């Protein structure tokens, strides 16, 4: 962990509120963490606020959601109160996001190669030829065997795993400092999942980037990240080194781990999670 | 039961009976509709139209709507004739009030024909697919290929003038979009897992169509109908204008516009007042339809 180097991303007391019919709904409560040149995982169940946290950092919380924070910085840039235009300048160039389903994130009527090249031109500049070269190099970097062929394919012509690698290529081509990956492999088969994660790992390490991996999958996060934040009801209830997840202390984390079926350790009944309202309190 | 307890009973997330569940659902839809100001304006117009049609004999003298009185022709607004009189000396206010009945009759009859025909063609086409779909949709395409007003005119001319024939002519030209809509809605639902679950239970095709698919298609069909109502009223007025709708001396709004046309420059109100009635009613149905669509969309989301 790079404790001494200034963090790439600093979040202190982040709060996201959505006004609702029966009063405000607080989706994220006082979330604080820093991200250096490392891989941090956020795990939690649906409704835990993990995705909203990622969206808040990207400036993608839909209206009428409200974001407040004591501190939210990308390097030296203050993200609080940044305008949509300001965020647009950051997105892609300094911070990027990979979502679960590449099918919805890619333009269906443009070849994947052109989309990557366009992204390159928009952020890095340069001519069409340079963009094409960069896109091909990026496709190669995500281990696509025949970049020339894949360059000319339309999104519906690529498989799920390849689509997600194309997404990663597109997101990383402008060389952002931080990548947020929200359930990047959840729609993929297990064998493909490993390949995509390996690609992601190689690039993030090789380029010295910070990665925030958002997932519901405890095993995946534990096996892939350096540090894990466990979220429950909008709050971080536990933060530990990924290797120490099996020794987690919070009853919620322990309950989640225990409720997973285990191939090696078959039981008739799985222990069920008993939720404690106190977990939602600070 | 006080208002507050009734409200909480309706909004109870755990209803205790079938009735409470259904009423609660309606109430929730009503609440989201009532928050939409324009939709409520539309609803107010439509309700006012219905009220006027029902209370017509109380608002105006039935005789005044049809009785000619040539000495008092083409008079401007007055206490005796709030909207003036037409070229035959008939009270325009009374004619507007009784004309609401004719408009509503056309609207109701067209709906009663169009919805079942549209569903009857569209549902089997979407559900069974294949040859059934091909045959039913080609028939629909043939009807769609003609311009609507021209086809309605041809039917009205062939069937002879009169309100019933005008209704039939409009309905015959109005159903194809409903068949297409019902087919499209059915297509998106026929492979739904709740339909497969019904197949597994041994439910017949008829039961699946009626109990699973119709309730989901019906709301979009009814919304489409409300939005189309403006067009139906205007087509009916158009037929009346051309003398193919209701026959004189019945106070049909379109025919009234037609008769006021000759004196439009000097006695503008003769054509303008029924024109305004057609316009306001069309806008009312349109706003209501828009609001209903928003409610349905927010429920689907």
């Amino acid at each position, binding site marked *: 962990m790079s404790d001494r180097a200034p963090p790439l991303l600093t979040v202190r007391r982040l709060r996201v509120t959505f006004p609702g019919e029966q009063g405000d709904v607080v989706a994220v409560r006082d979330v604080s963490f820093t991200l250096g040149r490392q891989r941090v995982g956020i795990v939690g*169940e*649906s409704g835990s606020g993990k995705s909203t946290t990622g969206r808040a950092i990207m400036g993608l919380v839909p209206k009428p959601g409200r974001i407040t924070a004591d501190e939210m910085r990308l390097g030296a840039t203050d993200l609080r109160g940044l305008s949509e235009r300001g965020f647009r300048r950051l997105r892609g160039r300094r911070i990027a996001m990979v979502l679960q389903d590449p099918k919805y994130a890619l333009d269906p009527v443009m070849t994947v190669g052109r989309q990557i090249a366009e992204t390159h031109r928009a952020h890095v500049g340069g001519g069409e030829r340079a963009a094409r070269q960069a896109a091909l190099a990026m496709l190669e970097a995500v281990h696509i065997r025949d970049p020339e062929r894949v360059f000319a394919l339309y999104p519906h012509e690529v498989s*799920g795993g390849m689509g997600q690698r194309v997404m990663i290529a597109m997101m990383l081509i402008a060389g952002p400092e931080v990548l947020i990956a929200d359930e990047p492999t959840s729609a993929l*088969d*297990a*064998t*493909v*999942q*490993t390949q995509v994660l390996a690609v992601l790992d190689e690039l993030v390490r090789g380029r010295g980037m910070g990665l925030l991996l958002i997932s*519901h*999958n*405890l*095993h*995946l996060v534990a*096996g892939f990240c350096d540090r894990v934040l466990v979220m429950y009801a909008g709050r971080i209830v536990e933060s530990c080194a990924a290797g120490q997840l099996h020794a987690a202390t919070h009853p919620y984390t322990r*309950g*989640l781990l225990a*409720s*997973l*079926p*285990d*191939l*090696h350790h*078959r*039981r*008739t*009944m*799985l*222990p*069920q*999670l008993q939720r404690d309202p106190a977990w939602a309190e600070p | 039961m006080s208002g507050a307890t009734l409200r909480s009973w309706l909004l109870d*997330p*755990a*209803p*205790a*009976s*079938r009735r*409470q*569940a259904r009423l609660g*659902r309606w109430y929730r839809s009503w609440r989201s509709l009532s928050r939409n100001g324009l939709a409520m304006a539309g609803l107010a117009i439509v309700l006012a139209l219905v009220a006027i049609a029902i209370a017509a004999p109380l608002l105006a003298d039935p005789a005044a709507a049809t009785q000619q009185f040539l000495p008092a022709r083409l008079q401007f607004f007055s206490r005796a004739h709030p909207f003036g009189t037409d070229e035959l000396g008939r009270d325009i206010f009374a004619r507007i009030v009784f004309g609401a009945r004719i408009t509503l009759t056309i609207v109701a009859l067209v709906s009663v024909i169009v919805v079942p025909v549209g569903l009857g063609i569209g549902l089997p086409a979407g559900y069974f697919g294949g040859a059934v779909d091909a045959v039913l949709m080609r028939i629909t395409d043939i009807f769609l290929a003609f311009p609507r007003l021209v086809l309605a005119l041809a039917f009205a001319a062939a069937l002879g003038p009169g309100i019933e024939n005008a209704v039939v002519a409009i309905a015959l030209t109005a159903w194809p979009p409903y068949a297409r809509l019902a087919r499209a809605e059915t297509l998106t639902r026929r492979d*739904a*897992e*709740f339909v*497969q*679950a*019904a*197949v*597994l*239970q*041994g*439910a017949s095709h008829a*039961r699946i169509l009626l*109990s*699973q698919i119709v*309730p*989901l298609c019906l709301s979009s069909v009814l919304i489409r109908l409300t939005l189309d109502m403006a067009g139906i009223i205007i087509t009916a007025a158009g037929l009346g204008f051309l003398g193919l709708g209701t026959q004189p001396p019945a106070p049909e709004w379109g025919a009234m516009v037609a008769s006021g046309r000759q004196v439009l420059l000097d006695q503008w109100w003769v054509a303008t007042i029924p024109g305004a009635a057609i316009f306001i009613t069309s806008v009312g149905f349109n706003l209501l339809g828009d609001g209903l669509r928003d409610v349905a969309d927010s429920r689907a989301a």
Partner: protein
Amino acid sequence: MIRLDRVSVRFGSGARRFTAVADVSLDVAAGEAFGLVGESGSGKSTLLRAIAGLVGHAEGTVELAGTVMPRRRPRAARRLVQMVFQDPYGSLHPNQTVDQALAAPLRVQRLGDGERRIAAALHEVGLGAAHRFRFPHQLSGGQRQRVAIARALIVAPPILLLDEPTSALDVSVQAEILNLLTRLRQEHRLTLLMVSHDLAVIAHLCAHVGVMQQGRLVEQTTAAALAEGRVHHPHTRALLEATPGFTGTVAAD
């Protein structure tokens, strides 16, 4: 209880003909829990639908409880097998209450005593009277899946098919549903056939496991053998190695 003899399912025709399930033969004894694993496109869900009688043009023989199923299944045969689907949002009609969802199969199958049966079915899946008149949008994902299970079991089928019943749920809810299925299976002596992409989930519920790849059943094994890594087919090995938490070594065969 379930006997499949050379079941195939093909879609399309001519050059675009695509074989989703190819010559699968399988035996599942009464009271057994059998799991089918495979990746997307392996044909596991299509096979399940063919057994359920949802694929009209399936080839081969499907025999349930000693009776060969005809192409068009009579209403009484529908009571032999019921299914729970993957998506608890899509498998319940959005405009119908839980009560309506449970009453429909009783009406179709002409089973009387609806009041008692509905209350009993709800109780059995851990729901109460408070849930009976709710619409699906007023229920959580886990509660919806419980309703789907109650709907399947209300006609008392001897065979229950499960298509990824927990993959759309959170892990804590998954544990609750798996425990419910374990209990119901014992109480009703159900024969289960479950499809999943998750080996750990399959091995938890099913002692016998079949591995599918590209429409074919490539290996039949047991949960115990999987846990020890005693597998033969390379695809089974690949699936096993990709299973999170798999630490052992896969025996080279």
